């Protein structure tokens, strides 16, 4: 009898959670309650990292300091150019009469190193709804797009990486503007492009940027570079493989970005980004 009740309850929960995501607040409360466990599980790796930082020779420290200084110098010089370009871009946009692009809010988060299901490309970060993180938010690292938030609690949230086989991200080729959808395949740093016509203007080494279609990922962030291209005139679509530019590591930092409130939001049909691809599974 109790088993029956348990089974029915679970089935009802699963149905509502999977179908409509009605249980977001319930999940939020539950994961907030369990957040301490996640932070405790992260402690050992945190400790080793801390130990590694402490146990360093003076020589190593000054060397890494010098490296960082050099890097800052180079980045600063590049920034000078960027300021000028930004001004120019704003001017041109004014001439064209289109809205200026502004930077929204951004926040750095640390990855909490906890075990996730083998095969699933997910990470957990140490920022949650207290900091304003929301489901569907885009997440970057220093090099490019890494994924999107799939669930939040008050103090931590879970991110689905773009390489997960449940994930798809709309992209465009930087050089030619060709559009495509980049699907994750469950392999590290690997994406495959869907719906690229055989005649499309795309080459190996092309950089793919997020196209902003779907309103989930902002426009113009680097996603991947094309590594393999097979065109077959008999088939209508080309086979295109790409490697992510983001490093997708299990430790380190990520950047959360908020959409710019001042920009006008297009009323594009809101397509849910994490597609569930039909795949066959043998077990």
């Amino acid at each position: 009898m109790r088993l029956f009740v348990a089974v029915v309850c679970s089935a009802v929960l699963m149905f509502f959670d999977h179908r409509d995501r009605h249980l977001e607040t319930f999940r939020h409360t539950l994961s907030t309650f369990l957040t301490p466990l996640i932070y405790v599980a992260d402690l050992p790796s945190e400790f080793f990292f801390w130990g590694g930082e402490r146990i360093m020779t003076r020589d190593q420290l000054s060397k890494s300091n010098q490296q960082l200084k050099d890097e800052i110098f180079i980045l600063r010089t590049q920034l000078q150019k960027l300021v000028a370009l930004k001004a120019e871009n704003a001017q041109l946009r004014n001439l064209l009469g289109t809205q200026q692009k502004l930077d929204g809010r951004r926040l750095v988060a640390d990855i909490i190193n906890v075990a996730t299901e083998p095969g699933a490309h997910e990470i957990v970060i140490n920022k949650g709804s207290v900091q304003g993180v929301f489901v569907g938010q885009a997440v970057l690292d220093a090099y490019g797009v890494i994924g999107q938030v799939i669930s939040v609690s008050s103090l931590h949230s879970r991110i689905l990486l773009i390489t997960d086989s449940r994930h798809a991200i709309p992209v465009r080729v930087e050089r030619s503007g060709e559009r495509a959808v980049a699907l994750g395949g469950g392999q590290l740093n690997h994406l495959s492009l869907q719906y690229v016509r055989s005649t499309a203007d795309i080459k190996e080494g092309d950089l793919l940027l997020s196209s902003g279609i779907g309103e989930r990922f902002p426009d113009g962030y680097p996603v991947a570079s094309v590594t393999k291209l097979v065109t077959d005139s008999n088939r209508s679509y080309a086979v295109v493989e790409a490697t992510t530019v983001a490093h997708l590591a299990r430790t380190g930092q990520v950047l959360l970005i908020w959409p710019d409130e001042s920009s006008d939001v297009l009323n594009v049909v809101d397509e849910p980004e994490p597609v569930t691809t039909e795949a066959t599974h043998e077990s």
Partner: protein
Amino acid sequence: MNPDARNNYYMVWMSFAVAMILNLLPLPKALELFWPDWVAMALIYWIVAIPHRVGILTAWLIGLFIDALEGSVLGLHALSFSIMAYFSLLLYQRIRLFPRVKQALVVALLIGVQMLLTLWLKNLTQPIERTMSYWLPLMSNAILWPWVFILLRDLRRQFRIN
């Protein structure tokens, strides 16, 4: 019922919390493949030891917690853990009498049933590629069971949980 037992009941939940942390520990890839399901082992132990206290409801709650921690669909582990608890409740008197090795095999079987159910439900709700290595932890569960059993039995005696 002695009044101590009521006070020490929290130790059962502490052991579940520790088991959950063990499940979440980040590990090198090679170890991760074999990492057993500590929560399932703890749950079976407590069901066999104190079936009047820990049963399907506890299993369901624990399953729900796992769902929240793992980010799987809510109710997925709750369902599979409840069913595992149901079978454990059917068998607990026999499991108590079994020699340690046989016990380990039955526990592995129970966890295997739970894993099979979990796998089905996961493939329904989160279709990612899962390989045969999914079943490797089952082996470590069987091997580690005697130690988990001794550890939790000592805990139970220490705190007079019954």
